[in-house]
C-alpha cells in the first residue's frame, strides 16, 4: 500500500477519535478476537485499534481469525506485520477453542457478496449458522469474557417499504424468499436468534449490530454494489452506468465511522440490544453518481439503463437509538466519503 493510502487512513482514524478522548478506554490492555478479521469490517477495526495503540498506548492485542488470513499481507501489509496483531487462519466453523486471554469478541464472519449468495447459498448459510454456533459455544469457555458483538445485517429487515423513510430496529418486516439474497438474510436472522438464546440461557454478554451500506477504503470495487461500480467506472474514465432511472435510495457510512461505532457498541451497548449501523441520510443513486462525477477530474458521463420501468427501492436505517443512547454520530458526510474514497483508490493504483 502506498504512503499516501496510509496517510489517508491515519487521518480518518484521527478524525473519528478527535473530540472523543477516552471513549474506547475500556479496551485498554484487553485482548480482542475478530472473526472474519481480515474482511472489510475486521480490517477497519484493526486500523482504528492500531492507531490508538500507536497514539494513545491503548495496548490492545488483536486476534484476527479468517480463512483468508494468508491473503492479509497483500491487502494490508503494515497491519499484517504488526506485533500487536496475530493472524489465525481458520474457518470459523472449525473454531472449537478460543485462547482464554480473550475478553472481547467481534463475530464478523460471513460473506455479504450477493454473487456468493446466488452461487453457493449452502456455504453462505453454513458459514453464518454453523460459524455463529461455533463462536458462541467456544465463548462459553472464556473466563473473562466482557463483551461479544455479533455483526448481523440490515438485510434482516427484508424489503423496506418505500413510504418508510428509515428502518428502525423495531421494524418487523419479512424477507422475500424469492430474493437471491434471502439465504444470507435468513441465516443472519437465525444467527441473531441463536445469539439471543445464548444470552438468555448462558448469560453471554451479547450485543448485535445491523450494518447497512458503506463506502470507503478497503472496499473492493469489483463488488456488485452500485456505488462501488460507479466509483470503478469513474476511475476508469467512465461512463458511469446506472441500472434504472437512478431513483433507488441508499445511504452510505464511511468506514472509520463504522469501526468507531462498532467498538462503542461492543463496549457500551446494552446487552441483548440490536443497533443499526449506517448513515440515516438517504440519497438517490442518480445523485450519488452525480457527486462521484463531480469530484472526479475526468467528469465521466452518466448513462441510465432504462429499458424497463424502474423498480425503486429504499434501504436507509434509523440510527436514532445509537445516537440517543450512545451519543454516536457521523463524522464523515457523503461528499467527503466519496472524495476520500476516490483519493484512496487513486493513490492505491498510482
Amino acid at each position, binding site marked *: 500500500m502506498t504512503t499516501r493510502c496510509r496517510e489517508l487512513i491515519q487521518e480518518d482514524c484521527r478524525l473519528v477519535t478527535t473530540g472523543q478522548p477516552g471513549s474506547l478506554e475500556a479496551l485498554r490492555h484487553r485482548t480482542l478476537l475478530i472473526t472474519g478479521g481480515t474482511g472489510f469490517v475486521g480490517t477497519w477495526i484493526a486500523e482504528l485499534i492500531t492507531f490508538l495503540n500507536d497514539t494513545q498506548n491503548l495496548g490492545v492485542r488483536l486476534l484476527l481469525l479468517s480463512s483468508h488470513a494468508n491473503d492479509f499481507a497483500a491487502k494490508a501489509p503494515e497491519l499484517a506485520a504488526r506485533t500487536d496483531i496475530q493472524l489465525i487462519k481458520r474457518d470459523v466453523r472449525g473454531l472449537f477453542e478460543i485462547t482464554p486471554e480473550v475478553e472481547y469478541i467481534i463475530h464478523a464472519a460471513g460473506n455479504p457478496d450477493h*454473487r456468493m449468495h*446466488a452461487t453457493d447459498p449452502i456455504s453462505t448459510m453454513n458459514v453464518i449458522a454453523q460459524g455463529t454456533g461455533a463462536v458462541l459455544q467456544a465463548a462459553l469457555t472464556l473466563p473473562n469474557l466482557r463483551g461479544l458483538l455479533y455483526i448481523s445485517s440490515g438485510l434482516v429487515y427484508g424489503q423496506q417499504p418505500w413510504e418508510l423513510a428509515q428502518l428502525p430496529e423495531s421494524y418487523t418486516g419479512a424477507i422475500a424468499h424469492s430474493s*437471491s439474497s434471502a439465504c444470507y438474510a435468513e441465516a443472519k436472522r437465525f444467527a441473531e436468534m441463536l445469539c439471543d438464546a445464548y444470552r438468555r440461557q448462558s448469560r453471554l454478554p451479547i450485543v448485535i449490530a445491523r450494518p447497512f451500506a458503506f463506502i470507503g477504503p478497503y472496499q473492493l470495487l469489483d463488488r456488485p454494489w452500485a456505488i462501488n461500480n460507479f466509483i470503478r467506472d469513474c476511475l476508469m474514465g467512465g461512463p458511469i452506468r446506472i441500472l434504472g432511472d437512478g431513483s433507488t435510495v441508499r445511504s452510505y457510512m464511511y468506514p472509520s465511522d463504522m469501526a468507531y461505532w462498532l467498538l462503542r457498541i461492543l463496549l457500551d451497548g446494552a446487552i441483548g440490544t440490536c443497533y443499526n449501523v449506517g448513515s440515516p441520510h438517504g440519497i438517490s443513486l442518480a445523485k450519488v453518481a452525480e457527486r462521484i462525477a463531480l469530484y472526479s477530474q475526468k467528469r465521466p458521463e452518466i448513462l441510465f439503463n*432504462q*429499458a424497463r420501468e424502474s423498480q425503486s427501492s429504499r434501504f436507509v436505517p434509523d440510527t436514532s437509538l445509537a445516537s440517543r443512547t450512545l451519543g454516536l454520530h457521523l463524522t464523515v458526510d457523503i461528499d467527503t466519503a466519496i472524495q476520500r474514497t476516490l483519493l484512496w483508490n487513486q493513490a492505491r493504483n498510482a
Partner: protein
Amino acid sequence: MPPILISDSTLRDGNHAVAHQLTAPQIAQYARCADAARVPIVEVGHGNGLGASSLQVGESALTDHEQLRIAREQLSHVKLGVHIIPGFATINKDLAPALALGVDVVRVASHCTEADITQRHIDYTRSQGKEVYGVLMMSHMAPREILVEQALKMESYGAEGVVIMDSAGAYLPVDVAERISALVAALRIPIGFHAHNNLGMSIANSLTAVEHGATIIDGSARGFGAGAGNAQLEVLVAVLMRMGYATGIDHYKLLEAADLAERELIPSLPTISSLSIVSGLAGVFSGFTKHVVRIAQTYQVDPRDVFFELGRRKVVAGQEDIIIEVADTLAKQRKDPA
C-alpha cells in the same frame, strides 16, 4: 411502451449457416450497412462465440481478432458485440484481447442450468467498464423456476440484462409467454429473447416476448443463422414499428442491409427444412444440423432418428462429438436389432 434494444446476430449466428466461413469482405460490407441502419448492437464472430474455432465445432475462416478488427473499422455509430461461452473462451486468451480491440458489448452465455460458469467473465467485463449481458442457451430445457434461478445468478454477478435463447427453435408462444413473464417479474434488469425458426414461430415468439416485457430482441438479416435461422431482423423491426415500439433503427437502411446480406453473405436462404422441423421437435440445438447430416450419411442412418436420440439424451451445444456415438449406436442397432 419501452424502447426495444435490437441485437443483430447476422455476423455471428449466420456464421453457423456457412460453417463459420464468413470472409473479410463479407463482414466489412454487412457491418458497414448495419452501421448505416443504426442497428444498436452488431454481434460478430464464430457461431459459438469467441475462442470456439476448433475441429470439434468448426474452424473459422478468420481468427476472432481478424473478424473483430474488420467489423470495428466499419462501426462508428453502433456497438460491436461478442458472444462468449466460458469453456470455449478464456478471459486472458480471448476476452481481454477482444475488449482491447474495441468490443463494446459482451454477451456471456451458458447452458440454461449452468449460469455459475459466467461469473468470472461477467465480472471481468464489468471491471473493464463494458456492457455485459447474460445469455441462457437451450432455455427450453429448463422449467421457468430454474430459468429464473439461473437468471438471478447472472443478475447478481452484474449482468445488465439476461437473454434467453430458443436455441432449438422449440418454443411455442405460450412457452415464451410463461418464461418471459416469470423472468420479468423476478429480475430488476432487462430481459431478452433470441429466437430460432424451426417451427416457423420466430417472429411470433419474439413478439410474444415483447408483449410480456422483454426489451432486448435478437434477429438476423433474412434470418441468417443456425438451422432454420433466426427471427428475420427486417421483418421483426417492421412489425415492431407497426406495433409502435421504438428501435432507433432506420428501416430503409436495414432493408438495404438485408438485401446485401442475401446477395453477398447467404449462399442459400434459410428454409424450414424437414430436418429443421425435426430438430425443433426434438429440442436439439439447430447448429447440430450440418454435423448430423454429414455423420448420418457416413454411418448410413436416418438423420431424423439421430436428432430424436440426441433430444432424448438432452445434448447441448459443445457436445457435438456425441453425434458420432449416437449414429454409431443406431447403425449397430440396425445391424443387430436384438
